[in-house]
């Protein structure tokens, strides 16, 4: 057994796979960040709000306000350097730090897609993606033909985990037996040409899409891993993700996934891609004397440290999506353990939450105008996520206390509609939220869900 593992760890593959992955990843990141900027979202998300929802353990992260633009510039420059393979390790690490910092500023903007990029860029720091076809080769006059196979497999494993968890998450009674939330989302896309007024409106299509989506997520890793089904699987990947891109406003996610899937192809394919890319790049580079010393294998200096990091990383990735099981009550309702578990486009949830500030001595109370404190997006996200409700309540408490109000209690009157059900009371409006703190314990002040959803 140990012998087999050791054999596996010594196997090598062509570095072309990593090179292609690096170039496309870098370009996607470059494009993604610029797109975010061009839509004015830096301002509306990081500069405009007076208050940001913090991640547990990362309360010290503050929005750089106007300087957020600089942070984005750093990120963009790093993405460019990564694409070119220039001082790769340093820039990849800096990209990871700057991107993750940006995402940690406000829970409001949490997207599984951004989480994916963060963790992917983390392991990419330790992967020799600049072994071939990079500026570093040119500068250091060294290039590597082969890299340890496990570096390439790590990327595949990450993708497999994402798909598998996403597929598993779709095995629930709302998704499969009620075709929710697709039953609400698809008909609303009536303005799409051809399919909008026809296919998307039919009941059976909602079910086909729900089951199809679940099966796709669970089966695609197998289709991609086996050579015979690989091309078919890839075509399915393109179709699936393009379809979701047309249907839903999910930004770069589909494209990042399509492009990442190329890693599953064998070395030959990657070499061909590099040839194509070279035709684009080389005319731009002057007739350079490309004097390299070619070393055949990339070897890690501190291999076991890196392997250790990867092992811990993947163990975390396998456990994290299932932590919701430690909590009672319905996951879709309480959202305890919902983030970081690849539950993508799974649930339709709208909330309406108002806060009452009460002076315990005088008995007088007033309702807060959320618009005075939060942006529209923040209000929308806060309204149905209990941890954000709690954090906001505390923020309001601090705010009013600093204004001279004493002995106050804050109550949340909250209603949430989940997956087509009628709105229900979400938070126990009799419990003073200021008397409870954020923790990993179950939030007893969330009202019980008046229905049942079976499955994962």
């Amino acid at each position, binding site marked *: 057994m140990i012998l087999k593992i050791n054999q596996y760890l010594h196997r090598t593959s062509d570095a072309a796979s990593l090179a292609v992955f690096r170039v496309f990843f870098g370009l996607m990141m470059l494009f993604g960040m610029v797109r975010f900027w061009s839509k004015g979202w830096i301002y509306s998300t990081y500069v405009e709000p007076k208050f940001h929802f913090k991640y547990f353990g990362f309360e010290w992260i503050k929005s750089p306000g106007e300087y957020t633009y600089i942070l984005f510039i750093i990120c963009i420059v790093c993405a460019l350097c990564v694409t070119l393979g220039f001082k790769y390790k340093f820039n990849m690490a800096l990209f990871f730090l700057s991107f993750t910092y940006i995402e940690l500023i406000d829970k409001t903007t949490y997207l599984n897609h951004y989480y994916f990029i963060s963790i992917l860029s983390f392991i990419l720091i330790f992967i020799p993606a600049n072994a071939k076809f990079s500026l570093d080769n040119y500068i250091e006059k060294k290039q590597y033909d082969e890299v340890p196979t496990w570096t390439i497999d790590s990327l595949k494993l990450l993708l497999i985990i994402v798909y598998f968890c996403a597929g598993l998450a779709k095995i629930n009674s709302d998704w499969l037996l009620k075709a929710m939330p697709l*039953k609400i989302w698809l008909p609303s896309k009536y303005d799409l040409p051809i399919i909008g007024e026809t296919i998307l409106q039919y009941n*059976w299509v909602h079910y086909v899409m729900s089951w199809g989506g679940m099966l796709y997520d669970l089966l695609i890793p197998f289709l991609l891993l086996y050579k015979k089904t690989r091309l078919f699987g890839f075509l399915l990947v393109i179709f699936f993700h393009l379809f979701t891109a047309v249907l839903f406003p*999910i930004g770069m996610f589909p494209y990042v996934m399509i492009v990442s899937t190329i890693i599953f192809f064998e070395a030959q394919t990657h070499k061909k891609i590099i040839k194509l890319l070279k035709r684009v790049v080389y005319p731009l580079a002057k007739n350079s004397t490309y004097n390299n010393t070619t070393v055949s294998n990339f070897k890690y200096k501190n291999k076991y440290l890196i392997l250790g990091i990867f092992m811990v990383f993947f163990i975390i990735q396998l456990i994290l999506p299932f932590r919701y099981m430690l909590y009672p009550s319905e996951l879709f309702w309480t959202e305890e353990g919902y983030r970081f578990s690849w539950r993508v486009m799974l649930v*339709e949830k709208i909330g*309406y939450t108002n806060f009452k500030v009460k002076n315990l001595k005088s008995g007088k109370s*007033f309702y807060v105008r959320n618009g005075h404190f939060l942006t529209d*997006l923040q209000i929308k996200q806060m309204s149905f996520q209990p941890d954000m409700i709690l954090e906001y309540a505390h923020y309001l408490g601090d705010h009013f206390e600093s204004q001279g109000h004493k002995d106050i209690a804050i109550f949340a009157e909250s209603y949430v509609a989940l997956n087509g059900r*009628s709105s229900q009371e979400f938070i126990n409006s009799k419990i003073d939220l200021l008397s409870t703190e954020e923790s990993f314990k179950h939030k007893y002040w969330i009202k019980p869900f008046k229905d049942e959803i079976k499955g994962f």
Partner: protein
Amino acid sequence: MLKKILLLNFIFLLFIGCSSDESSGNSQSNSVWEQKTEMLTNWADNFIIPGYQELYSKLLELQVAKNDFISETSQQNLDIIRSKWLEAYILWQKVEMFNIGPAEQSFYNNKMNIYPTNSTKIELNVQSGNYDLEDASNFSSQGFPCLDYLLHGIQSTDSSIISLYNENENYKNYLSNITNQLVSNTLYIKEQWVTYRSSFVNSTENTATSSANKMTNDFIYYYEKGFRSNKFGIPGGVFSNNPFPEKVEAYYNQNISKLLANEAFDAIKNFFSGNGGYSLEDFIDNYATGDQTNLSSEIKSQFYAVDDMIAELDQNFHNQIQEDLIKFLSTYDAIQQGTILLKTDMLSILQIATDYIDADGD
């Protein structure tokens, strides 16, 4: 083998899909485009355009009454201009929710009905004769609430009001300008809608800026802010430690607060049901599935409950607040229940697109 499994799955799905058609409301004889166009056409032709038309005609009458009052400042003319003002204010209640297109870009609502009115600023304007009504700083010193003050509030008795007008030309000037402004503002809207109508009616895509989505959002916004907060919440002290009875609509005239609230609520109910034509109620009925098939009836029941509660209130909300605040606040609560249904249940079904940022369906 895989193919067999997939085929079996497909047949299974077909079976589930075709047999569990609990959503009987899903029989769309018309396509969604057609439904939305019908809805927008109904809104434009039966609510918005006639609404502005009627308001404009009434404001012209008000203008005539104003001219008469200025040339002959008598008790009789004071009574006439007051009643014209009230008739116009009642018609205003029907159009306040249409903060879209020409109204939105010209800040029409702000110029017509910001209350409480800023009596200090009004007095300053009157004396200085120097003011720009287009400037945002003067939004709270013009419009219907300003006229309310000018016709009922500048003095405590009718005779002293008349005397003041006779003594001080400045008041007449201001009264005249404010009234003329109401007329010209509304004329602009009315004229713009002649051309705006077709882009309004044809904008049926499911985007954040399409008229169908914007108007639905405006309706909800009006329900929550214009109706619930402005007429009930703020005066009732919902958002403050103490009530502010002086912040009711038409504070200086006072006896008409309930009348105006009823008119506004009738407008809300009619708009929701479409007054015989296609509107939100029909749209919900066509789209609701599962739990939500009764949503439109639930919303209407809540509306009836609000009606009943308003009926029990004093004509004069200022007095109501001071005599029995709890009753007033219970009415607020009933309205609030409606807000929940509109902002969570209804929005969930209608899937109105927003464009804040990328989404994860999270």
